């Protein structure tokens, strides 16, 4: 189906819960309210006109006013692609999980929790994936500061090239 037909069908079913939708950019996307995410996901997977059975990826982005969590889905039979986004606030980023609808989302959501701090409700196994188990902080946020020491290892190395570059920049000013 073409992107505009796809968006028409989805808006006809769930018109109230969709905050924004567009196909003018590079890929068609919809922005959904966090409470209606699971109903829309079941519809997208099972309906005969949609049949989205392949979850390509799922990630999170830190835009400074809010945190965004999104996933990209594709259909093998009908060959169309859609991006589904959810907007969350910084203080308490919580959203429902889709790991029982598409099993591929399991590890992607664990990675988002590890690197950005998004908590997924009812996830079967939510713990850190990439960083060590006793790491403090979520590294991919825009205002993250690197600690100086970890387990008696010094994490700073003097870089002589950087010192010369900074001196030249100061001289130019």
């Amino acid at each position, binding site marked *: 189906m073409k992107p505009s037909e796809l968006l028409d069908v989805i808006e006809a079913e769930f018109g109230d819960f969709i905050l924004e939708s567009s196909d003018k950019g590079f890929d068609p996307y919809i922005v959904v309210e966090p409470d209606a995410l699971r109903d829309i996901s079941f519809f997208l997977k099972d309906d005969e006109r949609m049949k989205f059975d392949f979850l390509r990826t799922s990630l999170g982005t830190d835009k400074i006013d809010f945190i965004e969590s999104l996933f990209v889905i594709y259909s093998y039979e009908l060959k169309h692609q859609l991006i589904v986004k959810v907007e969350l606030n910084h203080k308490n980023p919580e959203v429902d999980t889709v790991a029982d609808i598409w099993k591929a989302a399991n590890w992607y959501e664990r990675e988002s929790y590890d690197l950005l701090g998004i908590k997924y409700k009812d996830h079967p196994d939510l713990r850190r994936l*990439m*960083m*060590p188990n006793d790491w403090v902080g979520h*590294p991919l946020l825009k205002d*993250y500061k*690197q600690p100086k020491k*970890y*387990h008696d*290892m*010094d*994490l*700073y*190395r003097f*870089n002589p090239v950087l010192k010369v570059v900074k001196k030249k920049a100061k001289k130019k000013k």
Partner: protein
Amino acid sequence: MSFYHKAESNFLVTTLDEVLNYTRKASLWYLFFGLACCAIEMMQAGGPRTDLDRFGVVFRATPRQADFIFIAGTPTIKMADRIKRLWDQMPDPKYAISMGSCSNTGGLFQRGYSVLNGIDKIIPIDVYVPGCPPRPEALTEAILILREKVQKEKFLRKEETKLVEEA
């Protein structure tokens, strides 16, 4: 002759020392420890064209049977504890070669939050090989330099002490 009581330098001990060092340098075995892209060049260096086996150098899979370790690849913070444990398990006398710029100083990934900037923060290194990744010819040169270092070691003789001048 026991190795704990080192002797003064005389003709017999020096010749024995040279023979012992020659047999040690001609058969160094390394621990196969490849982390990232440099591991593929280490594998190709053991392959048909640049053959490391002609120097007597073969790979072993366990640290208890190895003479030296090739750290090839980026050391991350999560992996650093394990590298230290492997280094402690190797028996004396042992050496270490740091291969590639990621393990020399952190390399391309210096700005990352999870990369240890240089492996010499946790273990002492004998030879540094620059490159990203270094060619197999550079690896051969590193092994030849290590052999020279092994040849000059004073295994049976006492170390010479220099007189410190009174200030």
